[in-house]
């Protein structure tokens, strides 16, 4: 019993250590890839970012709309409907924007990364690259990692902006909150610090979600079942990591 616990802990710590080394290797190789093989990165920004744009925009719009509705129903009890803008902006910029985007990103782009890399491994493409003296870490993993890291903050920003417009549409056009009050309240209460907190969060989440997706794909058992497991694990682990980190960063910023 105790021995099992020790093995589990040992296993966990070693995985964590390997993950850290893997992360450092990715980062160490990032600058040269970014400047010398920018084309590879651009392709991955397209895959991870541009192709995720539709789901992010639709989700952002409806999340913002729901915030408008819920905010109105709560705030109208205090006769403070005008604060609906502040309510929506705070929730979106600091929490929902980065977190929901990271979860959607893990589901939309993270799975694609993990399964793609896992399949490359299962079909021996990675080994073939090594045979041709091409480092698969540099050729395959780093561009995908960078693509995710670059895309995530922009996706989160787009999510927040679209969400704000969703809240504006519901609050101002549907429920009749004054438009001037909506924006003025946002501008007087929100500080640049709050915006930076959201951006900082989205950068961290982007790194974590991309790292875990690439890592799971790279370490997938090279069978059909192994790839499917790696895909599932990349989503589950990213989601857990993002939510825990969100708690820590929020506690730090307050």
């Amino acid at each position, binding site marked *: 019993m105790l021995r099992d616990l020790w093995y589990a802990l040992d296993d966990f710590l070693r995985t964590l250590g390997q993950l850290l080394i893997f992360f450092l290797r990715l980062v160490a190789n990032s600058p040269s890839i970014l400047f010398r093989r920018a084309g590879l990165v651009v392709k991955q920004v397209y895959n991870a970012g541009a192709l995720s744009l539709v789901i992010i925009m639709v989700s952002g719009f409806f999340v913002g709309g729901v915030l408008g509705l819920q905010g109105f129903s709560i705030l109208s009890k205090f006769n403070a409907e005008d604060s609906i803008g502040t309510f929506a902006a705070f929730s979106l910029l600091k929490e929902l924007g980065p977190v929901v985007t990271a979860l959607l990103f893990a589901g939309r782009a993270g799975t694609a990364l993990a399964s793609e890399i896992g399949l490359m491994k299962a079909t021996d493409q990675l080994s073939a690259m090594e045979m041709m003296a091409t480092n698969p870490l540099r050729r395959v993993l780093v561009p995908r990692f960078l693509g995710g890291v670059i895309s995530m903050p922009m996706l989160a920003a787009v999510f927040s902006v679209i969400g704000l417009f969703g809240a504006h549409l519901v609050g101002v056009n549907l429920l009749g909150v004054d438009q001037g009050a909506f924006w003025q309240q946002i*501008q007087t209460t929100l500080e640049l610090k709050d915006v930076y907190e959201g951006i900082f969060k989205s950068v961290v989440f982007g790194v974590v979600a991309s790292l875990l997706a690439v890592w799971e794909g790279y370490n997938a058992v090279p069978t059909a079942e192994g790839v499917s497991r790696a895909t599932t694990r990349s989503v589950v682990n990213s989601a857990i990591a993002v939510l825990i980190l969100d708690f820590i960063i929020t506690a730090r910023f307050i």
Partner: protein
Amino acid sequence: MRQTRSVELGTGLFVLLGMAALLFLTTQTTGSQAFSAAESYSVTARFENVGSLKDRAPVAMSGVTIGRVTAVEFDPQMLNAQVTFQIDSRFDQIPDDSDASILTAGLLGSQYIGLQAGGSDLYLEEGSEIQFTQSAIVIENLISKYLFNSGGDSE
């Protein structure tokens, strides 16, 4: 070739959109009346009680923001609070006997300094101190005063 072009175009559009969104968030949602301290002069005022006045609180005259609070300190010699604030250099004709009071924006809003023009021919300038000040209203004091007075009346 055609495919690479569309990928590049899509990525470019995406990056443009992302940057526009970031720009929107940083400029449009935060206090756009960002007061630049580039051309301004600093004035001090002493208050018995500053309430919950904080750095960066607005300094307003007739309700228009003309400056920002830069420091709120306790003076151990005079035993009161010294508030330093910057006023935009465009407004350099404020009489030096103007009075400063700490007001609250709305019922639950944040506190700010309101300036009321005086009648002097001399103007405020860099380093001058406002003589006439009015402290923040502390709700607890008001309540206790009210209770005390009403008790006295009934006797």
